[in-house]
């Protein structure tokens, strides 16, 4: 039995999850990473993707997050997501709406740097769309 640690998933609006977990997979910007207990203190940005949480009770939950960052300590892991939805509640329309909004932002962006950043975000969103909702 692996050691358990505190996992918290927080969105600006509320605390979504605060439970003991044994294993959490985070879609970090530089690639997916799995957090186990006693992880070295790490701070990482998170891209849109799926977070998989294996709870200490053995249950596995999945959440879709839209960017944010994670604060990992040996004793716990806090994921601050800009928006987070349980996997079961996600549907094509909400995702598509987000993609459309980002597309509009890309077109409205004035600075080059900003535009590149948004385009990157858009491609991550589209990836996510393809991955979790196969046509």
């Amino acid at each position: 039995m692996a050691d358990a640690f505190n996992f918290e998933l927080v969105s600006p609006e509320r605390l979504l999850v605060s439970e003991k977990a044994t294993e959490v997979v985070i879609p970090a910007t530089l690639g997916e990473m799995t957090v186990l207990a006693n992880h070295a203190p790490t701070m990482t940005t998170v891209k849109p993707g799926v977070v998989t949480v294996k709870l200490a009770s053995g249950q596995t939950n999945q959440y879709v997050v839209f960017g944010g960052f994670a604060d990992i300590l040996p004793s716990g892991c806090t994921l601050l997501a800009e928006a987070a939805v349980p996997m079961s509640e996600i549907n094509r329309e909400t995702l598509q709406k987000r993609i459309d909004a980002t597309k509009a932002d890309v077109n409205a962006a004035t600075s080059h740097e900003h535009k590149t950043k948004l385009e990157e975000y858009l491609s991550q969103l589209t990836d996510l769309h393809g991955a979790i909702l196969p046509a």
Partner: protein
Amino acid sequence: MPSLKDLKNRIASVKATQKITKAMKMVAAAKLRRAQEAAEAARPYAERMNKVLADLSAANAGNAEAPRLLAGTGRDQVHLLVVATGERGLAGGFNSSIIRLAREHALKLLAEGKTVKILTVGRKGNDVLRRSFRENIIDYVTFREVKQLGFAQADEVAHKVLALFNEGEFDVATLFYARFQSVISQVATASQIIPAKFEVSEAADASAALYEYEPGEQEILEDLLPKNVAVQIFRAILENNASFYGAQMSAMDNATRNAGEMINKLTLSYNRQRQAQITKELIEIISGAEAL
């Protein structure tokens, strides 16, 4: 001296007003609870964000290449005042106290020869400030149509602020809102959001050194600072919302009580007058009978 009929009408009208204020008080109380819950639910995110950024900015203090959202533009000539008020009135001194604070701040800056730009959030503040600072108001956001205040609304405001900042439209941004202390006390507050300021906790420095950053410290900071602006605005909006209902509740409570007092007074003079009339009629009848 008003006639009996006039008094009766006035009592009826005050009673009707009292019913309305009583209903508004109860509605405000129900909404206040929800607004307070929302403000409370948003706290963990803001706290964590603040902690992480305080660590990062402590590590970046004195760094010449620190992002401009943290270090500032190096000037403080142009000030942006983000004034968040309510959409509606009938909330006692809620709107006016925020507006007064913002106005004093603006006048002080103008007296120092600085340029002031104002972004109003909420209809009330916009209406009032437009009278005295017409040229200074550059934008206006309203949540009139919004039923449930969410992060999306705060993000919208943050977008505007950040876009202005990136275009070099201002150097310092200050946010005005009412901090919710309790149902009867809301404090108008000004807090600087750009350049960002953090309360650094004592323990922060020790743990910050051990962190591994992915991708890099600088990148994370650049990613988080704009988010922090949105979070700050979100918090201000939620606090404002709770404050608004708190202020409305106590204002309506007062109004209901005042109406009650007024009804008592009016009923008293109504009864007195009725009694006087009866006495007068009796005297007339008796003196009429005696004359026979």
